[in-house]
């Protein structure tokens, strides 16, 4: 069963990846890849990823760091002659790969995204202070100290303009019913996992 579906990676992407149903409309013109500011720095530009999806290159696509590098600049969407929501597909692919545990572990965007999610899903509100600190120190203690020193001025500015509350370190604010939120997230996860399971036999 599972092998049959794996051969049909395009169908899996259509079913499970956000905006994945658009992939088959790509006509391989190359404008997105040519327009992407990351250009030479990533392994697979969008159009190439779309071709790989159609060619059933499941592992190569999902283990790739490429979609994690998308900066959401929207250059590609603005120019795509077929109006593919390329940026969203990139993020959808990244998210799906992470769900499956295939995403590259040491990719910086992935690391930050995971921290952001952990921070947000706990109380339903982002704790700016904790998030910032965990971001600064995510690559080790020394790197964190260096980064904090570099960012001192910005941090001070944010404090003064009340964009950063120092008391958030004590726990911070949350949404009204964070238990309810947890339940919603749990249910959503169940639904998504069931969808994933379909393609894993």
């Amino acid at each position, binding site marked *: 069963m599972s092998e049959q579906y794996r051969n049909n990676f395009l169908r899996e992407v259509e079913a499970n990846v956000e905006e994945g149903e658009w992939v088959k409309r790509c*006509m*391989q*013109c*190359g*404008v997105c*890849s*040519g*327009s992407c500011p990351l*250009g*030479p720095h990533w392994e697979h*530009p969008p*159009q*190439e990823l779309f071709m790989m999806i159609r060619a059933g290159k499941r592992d190569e696509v999902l283990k790739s760091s490429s979609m994690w590098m998308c900066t959401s600049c929207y250059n590609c969407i603005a*120019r795509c*002659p*077929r*109006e593919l929501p390329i940026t969203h597909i990139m993020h959808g692919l990244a998210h799906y790969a992470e769900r499956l545990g295939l995403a590259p572990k040491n990719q910086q965007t992935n690391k930050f995204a995971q921290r952001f999610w952990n921070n947000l899903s706990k109380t339903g509100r982002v704790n700016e202070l904790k998030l910032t600190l965990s971001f600064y120190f995510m690559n080790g203690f020394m790197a964190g100290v260096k980064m904090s020193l570099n960012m001192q001025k910005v941090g001070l500015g944010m404090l003064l303009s009340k964009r950063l509350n120092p008391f958030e370190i004590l726990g911070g604010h949350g949404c009204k019913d964070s238990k309810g939120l947890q339940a919603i997230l749990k249910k959503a996860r169940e639904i998504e996992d069931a969808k994933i399971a379909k393609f894993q036999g």
Partner: protein
Amino acid sequence: MTDVVATNQTILVVGGGISGMTAALEAAECGKDVILIEKKPSLGGRVAQLYKYFPKMCHPTCGMEINLRRIKANQKIRILTMAEVTEITGDSGNYSVNLTISPRYVTENCTSCAACGDAVETEFDDEHNYGLKKRKGAYLPFLMAYPQQYVIDPRLIGTADADKAKSVCKYDAINLEMQEETLTLNVGAIIWATGWKPFDANKIQAYGYDRIPNVITSVELERMMDPTGPTGGKILRPSDGKEAKDIAFIQCAGSRDRNYLKHCSRICCTATLKHTTYVREQYGDEGKSTIYYIDIRAIDRFEDLYHKTKADKTVSFLKSKVANITQDKTTANPILHGVNTEGYQRYTNAHELVVLAIGMEPSVDFKQLGVNLSINEHGFIENDPSNGGMFGAGVATDALDVNRAVQSATASALRAIQVVNQVATAEG
């Protein structure tokens, strides 16, 4: 006053390009009364603005001359230039059509001696050359124009130049008092052969047509090649007037793109293949053409031209829709950025000149004109029974080459003939 005799057995043809001329001739040569109206001062349409046309690479003047000879020999065709339809009422077999005729200020006495053109000093953008050069305020639209009758630009009226033109005319052919006329015709069937216009290249922001001088359009290249055209038949860079030998062609400029025209304009691939023969004609082995494309759509028998072009060593094909164009400040060379989809390499390629293979869109917005025609999502006429006695011909119905436009015009003439024949039978 223009007097025109028309009855409900008359066929009206709107648009005097190759399609309109063909439809009018086919119907008239079958003995039908035809009125052919053209909004410009001359017949000819867009084909008259081409240098050569595929597949045989003959000069359009040749085909034009044959058609004009047929028109002159036929008593059944009445031609009105500078005329436009403003309103249509009625039904198949009995339409009432309102026209306005703009003043030409020059009468049939004109011998096109050119004296008025020489005398006048004021100049305007030359429409026939897409504004690449200027023309005088008293002018003949182009060499082969029909009727061979000068025109005074309305912007000249009331100026000293207009009086000057009148005073030098030895044939009493200039009448500065001419006014716009309105006319109502009764006709049985109507053929719409209003053709196309090039898509506005300024809208394709990433290609910089509005800010990079050495980015031009395919229709402009056609004009440059004309020995009587704006550059005397040479391919010159607008930035410095130097010959461009290394030329990039960008396909689907404005076509096949949901941001612009959704449809494939169908002739621009073949037109570009033709343009590489222009480059060869100018420079032999010294020239260089590079075609950036999504896929080459040289339909059916034009495939042959594609294979011939592929065999030409001066032409290369790069499978890529160009992402954007910038300009090298020192050389004024346009620089093309993108990804070669055969191998996924990124490129930044400088060329001396870029030609955009511009898309074709319908020249008339029929919805705005308020005529009751079935129009598809791209703005072209669908030949549909609900159109009654009105038929589309040529590029008004779809992006077509000349050969197909002529076939479509002949078909529409036959349909129109059937309508007026029915009227004749009914009236016994």
